[in-house]
């Protein structure tokens, strides 16, 4: 019966979050029809009363120590087994087992050391520096607050950890602001026209406080995901390293880090025009324009666009990605420096998904699982070794 109960819980959850299929909804209704008691359980859960409180309780339980005990018990059991084995085994095997034991003990020491070193590395958080004008900066990410409210700039405000611009009528001067996201940071901004931009670590976005004139023009260095508010009369233009993107109203991801030497535009929905020195192309959804900047070489490919904006949804998604590019992302997000023992490591390709808000060890572990590389963590440094 337990399985049935677990399945019911799954149905209720899906129903509550709004992702239940018709079939699942019917299954839930059937179960509800079975008894008043079922109905009662469902109603209490739907009301969700006390949910915040039980979430607090849930979060207050700390399992780290318990895991360490479990791990210890599992390991010592394997230990006992090896001793039983010794009874039958030849002396040669004794040596091997002894060697193995020593290895696993020193291995555990190293592990503990590693855990300590990793503890100082934390995932990125919501922070940014807003440059209002040369020499005038505001650090964002702390308490929400109104930053500027005047007739020159309109209202600039931090609302729920995001920056929001509200234009006032009659702004005539084109005043520029720059939002800088340091390493280990991320932030969102709603521009004066209502367009939203998600900005990744190590990124700069320059834009006017109000869009005056015939077009909306901004400049990006780094990575940003744009959801542009439609305005047929005023195209939205993003200037990047070696590329210019022109849109009316769409969503797309742009990536142009100097160290990559390439600029990539990925279209999620709508239509965009991509202009480089020598070419002019139009992208359809799920297409990507990839430019090698120095050579002005442009390639258009078909991709799954959603995975290129996964970082805005708390994930790293890598698809046959070079290790160096992956580690550049990791370095920006966790604010660490990466060194390679062999430069051949940079070219190894990886695929996978990792949670962005997770501890860095999770990410490194996933990459290590492939058996191709090993990471040595030393304070804010990560050393990559080919296995």
């Amino acid at each position, binding site marked *: 019966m337990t399985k049935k109960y677990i399945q019911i819980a799954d149905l209720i959850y899906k129903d509550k979050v709004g992702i239940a299929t018709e079939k699942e909804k019917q299954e839930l209704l059937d179960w509800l029809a079975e008894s008043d008691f079922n109905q009662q359980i469902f109603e209490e859960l739907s009301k969700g009363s006390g949910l915040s409180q039980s979430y607090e309780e849930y979060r207050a339980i700390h399992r780290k120590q318990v895991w360490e005990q479990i791990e210890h018990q*599992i390991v010592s059991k394997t230990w006992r087994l090896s001793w039983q084995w010794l009874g039958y085994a030849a002396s040669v095997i004794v040596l091997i087992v002894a060697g193995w034991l020593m290895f696993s003990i020193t291995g555990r020491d190293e592990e503990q050391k590693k855990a300590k070193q990793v503890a100082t590395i934390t995932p990125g958080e919501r922070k940014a520096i807003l440059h209002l004008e040369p020499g005038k900066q505001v650090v964002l990410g702390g308490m929400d607050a109104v930053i500027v409210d005047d007739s020159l700039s309109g209202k600039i405000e931090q609302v729920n950890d995001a920056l929001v611009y509200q234009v006032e009528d009659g702004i005539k001067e084109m005043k520029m602001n720059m939002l800088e996201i340091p390493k280990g940071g991320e932030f969102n901004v709603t521009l004066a026209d209502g367009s939203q931009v998600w900005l990744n670590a190590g990124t700069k976005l320059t834009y006017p406080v109000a869009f005056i004139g015939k077009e909306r023009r901004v400049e990006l260095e780094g990575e940003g995901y744009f959801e542009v508010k439609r305005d047929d009369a005023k195209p939205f233009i993003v200037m990047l390293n070696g590329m210019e993107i022109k849109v009316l109203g769409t969503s797309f991801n742009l990536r142009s880090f100097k160290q990559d030497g390439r600029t990539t535009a990925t279209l999620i929905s709508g239509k965009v025009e991509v202009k480089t020195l020598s070419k002019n192309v139009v992208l359809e959804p799920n297409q990507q324009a990839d430019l090698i900047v120095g050579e002005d070489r442009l390639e258009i490919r078909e991709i799954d666009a959603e995975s290129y904006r996964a970082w805005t949804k708390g994930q790293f998604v890598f698809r046959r990605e070079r290790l160096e590019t992956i580690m550049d992302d990791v370095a920006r997000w966790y604010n660490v420096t990466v060194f390679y023992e062999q430069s051949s490591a940079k070219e190894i390709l990886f695929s996978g998904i990792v949670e962005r808000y997770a501890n860095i060890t999770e990410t490194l572990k996933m990459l290590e699982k492939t058996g191709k590389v090993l990471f040595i963590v030393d304070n804010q440094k990560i050393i990559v070794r080919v296995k």
Partner: protein
Amino acid sequence: MSRNYCFTLTNGVQLDFKQVFDQYFNSLVLFSDRYLGEREESESLVQDAFLALWENRLEFPDEISVKAYLYSTVRNKALNVLKHRKIEQQYMNDILRDEDAELYYMKSVVEEETRRLIFTAIDSLPEHCRKVCLLNLEGLDNQEIADELQISLNTVKFHKKNAYKLLRDKLKDKFYLLFLI
């Protein structure tokens, strides 16, 4: 190198024991608490249940059997503790009496498991979405959430839309994980 505690179910799916532990430990403690009302005792009881799971790890046909095993093991262990306590309260007797016992068990599993799914989802959201999402699930309407968190109505709408989109996308991602690599 960190140790790997993966094991394979008979249907071929691989599970990571540490991950199962992370996903279930907190909820199982709350679940056990419904019987024992004693946090520390619950924690050590759930720890035992995980050790039992590890011993039997090669016996499970599929993932749901693992989940069911955890809940039923915790319940059985909790009932055992109650029997030893020999408290003659009516409440305890209710829990122990067969017919009601099953209903109490069903209610507890359904509630804890539903909450576990919700909390896991909420944990995966960016900080600022969490509060809005939680209050919304608690049944507050947009205006009430805005008042509670002292933010504008539009901000509430934005985060709410965002939160549900993220949750749905997360679910989709689970499927495309399968054809990656």
